[in-house]
């Protein structure tokens, strides 16, 4: 009798938890659209400049979000460009080559790295900037490149861990298959193990990309500013959506600006969803390509 009641209440609680989650997501989106919907026009992105001119880089956009969107995209591309090769290589090393005491030591190190708060990573980036600034006669200051490096080191542990776990959980029979047929260790990794775990690795990449897109603490210490326009090089300061949202929420001057901030939040949401969908597509294409080529 008691057991049945317990079982029923667990089911009910699970349902409630699920419904609560979905409701809060819908509420969040509805609230954002309610507050920022009115500002969702082309002028939110391009300001007073003609969209085509702005995209062709003919004219600068002053009060639109274009620079912030481009900045965020550059930030994601730059940091993933650094983090993916290093992270995947690190994961391969951890799963396939590292053994014994070294392995437990590095495991601990990556766990600690994964637990470092992003503001600390930002501070480390800032310290690096100050160091570089002193040693290169003030030629280097906070910029896109340093933000990318800091964000990359922030997401590195996720990438290493997901790659490592994906490789370690490949079916032992599949793991032995190529070796028995005369594969070298490297051939086994590139031709069997990686293709078999590619979708798990890409799930890690998706998580890391989201982290890069939304992180504010790191970039506000290493190069993001409120108004900078489009960065001309990686050594330039830049605008970014999460920093813009943070900035507006703390210093808005009127209802119009506040609505713009909500608009920026919606755009960030759309951007992240777009990235997620395209990564899922790449995930499918890539695993088919790697296994059946």
């Amino acid at each position, binding site marked *: 009798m008691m057991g049945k009641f317990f079982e029923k209440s667990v089911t009910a609680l699970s349902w409630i938890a699920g419904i609560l989650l979905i409701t809060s997501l819908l509420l969040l989106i509805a609230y954002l659209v309610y507050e920022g919907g009115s500002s969702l026009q082309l002028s939110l992105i391009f300001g007073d400049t003609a969209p085509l001119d702005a995209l062709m880089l003919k004219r600068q956009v002053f009060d639109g979000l274009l620079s912030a969107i481009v900045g965020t995209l550059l930030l994601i591309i730059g940091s993933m460009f650094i983090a993916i090769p290093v992270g995947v290589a690190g994961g391969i090393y951890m799963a396939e080559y590292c053994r014994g005491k070294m392995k437990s030591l590095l495991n601990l190190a990556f766990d600690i790295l994964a637990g470092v708060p992003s503001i600390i990573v930002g501070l480390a980036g800032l310290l690096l900037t100050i160091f570089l600034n002193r040693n290169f006669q003030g030629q280097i200051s906070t910029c896109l490149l340093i933000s990318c490096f800091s964000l990359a080191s922030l997401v590195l542990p996720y990438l290493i861990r997901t790659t490592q776990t994906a490789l370690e959980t490949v079916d032992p029979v599949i793991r032995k298959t*190529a070796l*028995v*047929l005369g594969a070298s260790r490297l051939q086994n990794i590139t031709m069997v193990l990686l293709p078999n775990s590619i979708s798990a690795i890409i799930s890690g990449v998706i998580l890391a990309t989201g982290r890069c897109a939304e992180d504010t603490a790191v970039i506000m210490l290493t190069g993001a500013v409120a108004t900078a326009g489009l960065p001309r090089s990686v050594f330039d300061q830049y605008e970014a959506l999460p920093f813009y949202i943070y900035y507006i929420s703390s210093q808005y001057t009127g209802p119009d600006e506040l609505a713009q901030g909500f608009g920026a939040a919606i755009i960030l949401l759309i951007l992240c969803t777009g990235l997620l969908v395209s990564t899922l597509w790449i995930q499918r294409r890539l695993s088919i390509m790697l296994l059946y080529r």
Partner: protein
Amino acid sequence: MDTATTVNNAAVQVTTVEVSIKIRTQSLCFYYRRQQVLHDISLQLPANKITAITGPSGSGKSTFLMVLNRLWEEVEGCGISGKVTMELGGHFKNIHDSTFPVRELRREVAMVFQQPNPLPMSIYKNIAFPLRLAHVNDKTRIKENVESALRQVCLWDEVKDRLGDDGRLLSGGQQQRLCLARALVLNPEVLLLDEPTSSLDPEASKAIEELLLTLKSQCTLIMVSHYQDQIQRIADLHIKVLNGRFST
């Protein structure tokens, strides 16, 4: 180990005079994490015969197969002592010789597992995979070898029109024959079989058994098996293992 046991296991001769010897082990011991799995095994296995190895699970049968193609080296915490020599390409070679690359050994000593393990790729690519690993790039040669391997295992007629299909879509028996074909595509001299029919129905098992008999002419087969009737049907030689000790 006490003296009595040593004498008991000193040399289990399992060969007749006329047959040439393919594999020879001398005081072979195998350890896994400080636990001894194989005890002082000295035996000789004849060429072009089917040698069946039986014994309760955990007695070291599969471990013995893993020694013969050095697959144990991929498992952490394993150790070995003693000597294994094999007649490969007309010469007896110490398989643990540092100048003998493990990849070459595994091309000569193929292995088929209990569970059919086609890789997640097409039938054709599964068979061609060992050739790719061996850097064979000649397309016509690959094609010929794939076809002859599939013919050897009597699978060609069943799959010739769908070589591009995923290998995992075949039936269990077909998958196991696919794996046999994959193991045979490099023309190995020794074929290790770890309970090759235990995941198959009687019909498919029979087909595999008949196949193994035809393979005797071109390679030496070492088979771990649980089935007494199967051993009586196809094995030329029967070795029993108990707690890591071998006897005929």
